[in-house]
């Protein structure tokens, strides 16, 4: 038979829901705001019903329409008048709303039965009222559990404490607004609340107020030159200090939290009235003295409880802590000092009751539900058909209108939430049609869930992930015909294109890129930093694209040396008429350059052209040879044509060296691009595939090595490298894939050198070097002899030291294969 599994803490100030699953309790977070708990507050505003945080925040604006602490009226005749709707509601009605909201936290598998906790003080009528609230919220079965028992179960289950022996526990529950203490007897797995005490108006909020009144106000009075600041802030008449009150209350709460971890805190306050910041220290000692009377009050109530029941301190085996206020270390210390029992704070006191209720629910079978379900099924409202939702998919506005149409004179409620938890309309009643302006997070996609409920607030329609994009698409502008890219250095001495704007992005466009300098450019060294912006395809070679912005920063123009690794900030703006503006800022040498490139004036640099052509010759020779070896003569022949064209272009470049008048250079540039495009078509794809294969081979090798000899550190680095694999393997950029392969090779080497035997190999690499390569031949020979002995005697530590000594003796040190190469452009 199925278990109930769901546990609910229906609290006076906060509520929560959990589920027992596979031996553990999972606490559901509020999908709006993602907190573990929900304030038990209901508000009515602008025809909406709000539950939780947003309801509580309206307390000061329209207190007559906000309802909290209604649990205290549970089971009484008391009715609450709601001016906004002109209705009368009971504590059961409000509790049902809270419960429905909690049930909403649970994803698809909504609970049909649950354990709900009640205070130890609840009588039969109050208990039955709680059950009614559960049924009204749509639960078919409700089991009640006293809160102190739930807390004991939470502690016992999480810590596997035996509850077979007979003992007494105190459940000390100090929450945000109330204090309760209960004496629980445990005997042979039976838990029973013997007696309880409490104060309905003592909680964490009182402590925040104390901090504000006694620790903040005296300092502020001096600064502001005023007296009776506390009274002025809290007086019914709103004065200049009312605003300060909320800010101070927030700071007080923060200070309280921090003091639970640290011995002292600095509180910093912005005084708008005096336009300055003030800072002062509060020590835990001061804080403890301040809160002592409040904590002492709880201790007195606890002592009274024990006395009433003739229980001595020694008979209390354990005090378990519940409620957020018990986070304060002094509470724990003082309890320990006064009762000399174990004070157990091993689990989260704010969710302990939910955890306990869920453990209990995990042991209880659902009863006779099958027949009830059958009956209820007949009554279930039919899901709504033909609901029409009308909205714009793309928007430039901060809010976008959603209109919903439901046919057949439907009356009920709707609710729209944003899936990121930042927007919630609350429940709103409507007839046939509703309009709601949905708030959008700027420059991103926004997803909403739309729910429609019938008159009894039963879900009858749901549309998930309705998507509205904000500011991603500008509807009116022209699209870019090609990618706009920046040429950047890789770590292998070659360059590739980084896409700045994508083909079909809509003009105007702007973007900021942060790059680093890839080679040191000393002042007046003749070196230069090259910014080359091209239009074309990001996945092709830089030289096959059209240059639309070209800028050289010469070493002569630098105010100081530009060092490798310096940050450079580049802003790109493209106007609707396709003018490109580039702003360059190098903070380290305080260099700022702004340049506008007009689309009609082409940018061609002879130096760069020559460099590109020369560099390609070496590559093309290699490729021709390879294709010939693989008997692909047709491709080799076509590449040879490209080679001839490149040589001709180089010759042509020499001819026009001093030609500043004609447009021959543009002709050469055009021919160069065509030649590179042919080269790209013939070769690039093959190289990308080869590169991917090499990457995959290294990846598999490392995976196998890690499987045989797990190493968390290396595994972490490995996972980081392969994290965005799909992205870089599909980039079509050999440079990018190659640099990832290089990182994998580095790991592979690291794994190799984890085995001591690897050093034997390395030693012989040094031993077989020509002895003249060492600066001191006799010492080197001695090291080599010692090394050979160390190998024989398997003394690897000694061998490592010898290798290191030999390395230092080398006249020319071997190059580190993994070291990044200097860039050619100077930008990476």
């Amino acid at each position, binding site marked *: 038979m199925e278990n109930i599994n769901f546990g609910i803490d229906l609290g006076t100030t906060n509520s929560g829901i959990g589920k027992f699953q596979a031996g553990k309790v999972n606490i559901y977070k509020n999908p709006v705001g993602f907190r573990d708990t929900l304030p038990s507050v209901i508000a009515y505003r602008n025809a909406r019903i709000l539950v939780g945080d*947003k309801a509580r*925040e309206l307390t000061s604006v329209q207190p007559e329409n906000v309802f909290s602490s209604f649990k205290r009226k549970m089971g009484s005749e008391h009715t609450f008048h709601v001016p906004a709707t002109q209705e009368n509601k009971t504590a059961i009605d409000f509790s049902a709303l809270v419960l429905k909201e909690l049930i909403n936290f649970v994803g698809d598998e909504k609970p049909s039965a649950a354990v709900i906790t009640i205070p130890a003080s609840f009588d039969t009528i109050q208990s039955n009222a709680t059950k009614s609230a559960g049924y009204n919220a749509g639960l078919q079965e409700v089991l009640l559990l006293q809160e102190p028992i739930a807390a004991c179960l939470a502690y016992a289950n999480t810590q596997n404490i035996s509850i077979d022996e007979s003992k007494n526990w105190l459940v000390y529950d100090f929450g945000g607004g109330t204090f309760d203490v209960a004496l629980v007897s445990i005997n042979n797995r039976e838990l029973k609340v013997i007696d309880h005490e409490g104060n309905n108006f003592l909680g964490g909020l009182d402590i925040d107020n104390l901090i504000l009144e006694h620790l903040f106000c005296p300092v502020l009075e001096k600064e502001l030159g005023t007296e009776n600041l506390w009274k002025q802030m809290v007086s019914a008449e709103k004065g200049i200090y009312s*605003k300060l009150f909320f800010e101070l209350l927030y700071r007080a709460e923060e200070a309280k939290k921090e003091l639970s971890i640290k011995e002292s805190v600095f509180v910093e306050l*912005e005084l708008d009235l005096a336009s300055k910041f003030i800072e002062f220290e509060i020590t835990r000692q001061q804080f403890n003295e301040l809160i002592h009377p409040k904590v002492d009050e709880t201790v007195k109530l606890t002592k009274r409880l024990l006395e009433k029941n003739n229980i001595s301190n020694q008979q209390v085996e354990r005090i378990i802590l519940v409620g957020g206020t018990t986070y304060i270390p002094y509470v724990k210390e003082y309890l320990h000092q006064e009762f000399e029992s174990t004070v157990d704070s091993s689990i989260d006191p704010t969710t302990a009751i939910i955890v306990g209720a869920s453990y209990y629910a995990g042991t209880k079978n659902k009863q006779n539900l099958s027949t009830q379900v059958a009956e209820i099924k007949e009554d279930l409202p039919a899901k709504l058909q033909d609901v029409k939702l009308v909205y714009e998919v793309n928007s430039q506005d901060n809010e976008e209108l959603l209109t919903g149409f439901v046919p057949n004179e439907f009356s009920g409620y709707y609710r729209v939430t944003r899936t990121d938890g930042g927007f919630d309309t609350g429940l709103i009643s409507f007839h046939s049609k509703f309009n709601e302006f949905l708030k959008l997070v700027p420059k991103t996609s926004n997803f909403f869930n739309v729910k429609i409920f019938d008159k009894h607030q039963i879900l009858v329609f749901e549309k998930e992930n309705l998507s509205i994009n904000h500011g991603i698409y500008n509807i009116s502008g022209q699209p870019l015909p090609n990618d706009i890219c920046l040429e950047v250095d890789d770590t292998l001495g070659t360059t590739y294109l980084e896409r700045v704007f994508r083909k079909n992005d809509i003009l105007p466009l702007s973007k900021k890129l942060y790059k680093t300098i890839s080679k040191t450019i000393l002042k007046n060294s003749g070196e230069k930093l090259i910014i080359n912006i091209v239009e074309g395809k990001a996945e092709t070679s830089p030289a096959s694209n059209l240059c639309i912005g070209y800028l050289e920063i010469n070493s002569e123009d630098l105010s100081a040396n530009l060092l490798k690794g310096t940050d450079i900030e580049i802003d790109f703006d493209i106007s609707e008429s396709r003018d490109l503006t580039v702003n360059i800022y190098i903070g380290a040498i305080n260099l700022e350059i702004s340049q506008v490139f007009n689309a009609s004036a082409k940018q061609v640099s002879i130096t760069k052209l020559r460099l590109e052509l020369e560099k390609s010759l070496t590559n093309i020779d290699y490729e021709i040879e390879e294709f010939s070896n693989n008997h692909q003569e047709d491709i080799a022949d076509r590449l040879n044509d490209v080679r001839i064209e490149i040589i001709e272009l180089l010759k042509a470049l020499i001819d026009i060296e001093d030609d500043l008048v004609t447009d021959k250079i543009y002709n050469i540039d055009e021919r160069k691009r065509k030649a590179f495009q042919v080269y790209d078509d013939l070769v690039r794809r093959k190289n990308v595939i080869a590169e991917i294969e090499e990457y995959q081979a290294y990846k598999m090798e490392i995976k196998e090595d890690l499987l045989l000899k797990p190493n968390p550190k290396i595994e972490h680095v490995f996972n980081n490298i392969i994290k965005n694999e799909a992205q870089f393997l599909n980039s079509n950029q050999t440079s990018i894939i190659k640099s990832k392969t290089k990182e994998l090779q580095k790991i592979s080497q690291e794994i190799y050198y984890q085995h001591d035997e690897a050093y034997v190999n390395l030693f012989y690499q040094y031993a077989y070097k020509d002895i003249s390569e060492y600066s001191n031949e006799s010492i080197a020979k001695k090291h080599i002899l010692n090394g050979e002995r160390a190998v024989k005697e398997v003394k690897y530590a000694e061998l490592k030291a010898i290798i290191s000594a030999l390395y230092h003796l080398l006249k020319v040190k071997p190059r580190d294969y993994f070291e990044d190469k200097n860039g050619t452009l100077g930008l990476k």
Partner: protein
Amino acid sequence: MKDIITQIFEIENKIKPEDFAPFKRNFQRIYHELEEEGYIIVNPKDQPYDERDASIEANILNENGSNLRISKVLKPTIYKNEGGNRVLIQKAVVIVE
């Protein structure tokens, strides 16, 4: 991370508008890097108060409740992109009047 972001936000707000120019690029860069890490930070200052906005925790001063605006932001709203989903990780703490 959200505590670090809140500290950055506090530092930014402590600088007077007339002294802000030299720091502007630094803050832009910090926010850019945070965005790259998936954090979206929203400062709701001067927005009209909206009871549907669950990304803020408001302390409302003006008791007659008309023309409410966010006059001060003590903590910004922070969202985090995780596996393609955006999730609210910190509500803004604001004063509304």
